[in-house]
């Protein structure tokens, strides 16, 4: 080993390193290694603000603590209305992240990179949506353990306010393209949340008040509506709205 080192040093001292020829040209035209879509997907986790994950966790914990603190022997469905009222805020968290480009005037730059704005938004929504989905399923299981309602009713209980807020937020983002978009999305979340509390108070349990068929039709309509609005939103990222900012 030492012999090798010595030899290396001797060779180094014996030869004079020639001046690099066209080093500048070489560096300018050097092909930079690229990542694939999977690596791009993973790389984007780092660029979602840490506080977004933290807030998701806090909202989730608030829901869970609320649920656990309710005495199941004297369980009143009105108290449980707190839970679906918190769900719109899961959506608000995602909305603030995907409207970040608009809020900070980064759309024009992000539209021209290899992975375009549409792909960036899809990737971030997929990451945050997956986290939300896990939390919602976790809440659903917790509710199922606590309440003697069918899984279907409990799913409606969680996913209707969720999808309604998704639809409202996407609708807002499709029509309002300025730095205040987050405030409008917050307005949607607060409205859905308040409407949820008011309806629970007025009806006792609104999912029992109207037939399950009605809620199922509403659920399907909301899924379709969210898909339409999401498609519209992604399509809108393909062209810059020239006088919107």
């Amino acid at each position, binding site marked *: 080993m030492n012999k090798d080192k010595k030899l290396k040093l001797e060779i180094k001292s014996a030869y004079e390193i020639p001046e690099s020829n066209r080093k500048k*040209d070489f*560096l*300018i035209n050097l092909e*930079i290694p*690229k990542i694939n879509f999977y690596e791009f997907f993973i790389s984007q986790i780092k660029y979602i603000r840490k506080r977004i994950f933290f807030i998701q966790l806090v909202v989730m914990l608030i829901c869970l603590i609320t649920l656990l603190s309710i005495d199941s022997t004297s369980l009143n469905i009105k108290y449980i209305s707190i839970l679906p009222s918190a769900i719109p805020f899961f959506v608000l968290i995602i909305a603030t992240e995907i409207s970040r480009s608009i809020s*900070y005037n980064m759309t*024009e730059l992000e539209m021209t990179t290899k*992975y375009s704005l549409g792909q960036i938004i899809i990737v971030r929504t997929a990451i945050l949506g997956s986290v939300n989905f896990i939390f919602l399923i976790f809440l659903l299981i917790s509710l199922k353990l606590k309440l003697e309602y069918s899984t279907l009713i409990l799913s409606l209980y969680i996913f209707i306010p969720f999808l309604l807020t998704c639809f409202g937020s996407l609708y807002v983002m499709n029509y309002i393209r300025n730095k205040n978009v987050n405030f409008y999305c917050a307005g949607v979340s607060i409205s859905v949340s308040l409407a949820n509390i008011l309806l629970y108070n007025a009806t006792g349990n609104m999912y029992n008040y109207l037939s399950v068929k009605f809620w199922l039709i509403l659920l399907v309509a909301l899924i379709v509506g969210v898909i339409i609005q999401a498609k519209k939103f992604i399509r809108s990222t393909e062209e*810059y709205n020239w006088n919107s900012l």
Partner: protein
Amino acid sequence: MELIIDRITKQYANKIAVDRISCSLKDGVYALLGSNGAGKTTLMRMLCGVLAPTSGEIKLNDLNTSDEEYRNLLGYLPQDFGYYPDFTAMEFLMYISSLKGLDKSAAKLRSTELLNITSLSDVAKKKIKTFSGGMKQRLGIAQAMLNNPKLLILDEPTAGLDPKERVKFRNLISDLSKDRIIILSTHIVSDIEYIANKILVMKSGQLIHNGSLDEIIKVIENKIWECSVSTSEAENLSKMYTIINIRHEKDNTFLRLVSDKSPTPDAVKAQACLEDLYIYYFSDISEVERNGK
């Protein structure tokens, strides 16, 4: 590399921002010259795929602007770009590198190199929200070059740069100009004179000239005059001709103006430059007034 722009038009309701522009650009530096509202930014946005043309086609070696491979070859500095305020300069470049699909270690090396070139190494770890306008502009230039683009489009790249930085930028562009197409727009005529191989002059959405500096200046050759006249005569001449420069001297007023023939018996012809051409085309005196004189 060949960028073909074929009868590109962009219309917004009643306004035609870009009107049937056609040209073919090969490797080199092209400068877009035109007054505010001439359609430069709209054309650049269409070249970047940010705006879809109302009609016409843009192709880079048979690639469409909507192709991922087109964007892979593209570097773009928008006129007015934002940034995420919590990012440091290095984080911003690493973020853009990830969107450009660059490998992390290569991106780090490239970002460090570009921060050095744009004299931002000292502030690499400082948040962008603390940067001055010029520093943000330099960071914008750096991000455009991250992927070693074959088509580099820079909208007002020298805006906010001090003279020293502008010289550095011009040298950088000259070094990069081999084997790639660089299109830049600027109001700073001297930048164009120094670095552009070809100049594209736009007016009211149309491409009115496309050629080298010498070819373009021919339009006003033998039309630039200098004279020293009284203040009252200077006022009269200002109403009649396109004035390039006015300098008040002790008793007289020195004028540099554009005219087909000698404006005064004492006027002398002067060598035309790009700034003369710019003022000739984009002054407040209309063509009709000029021709009717």
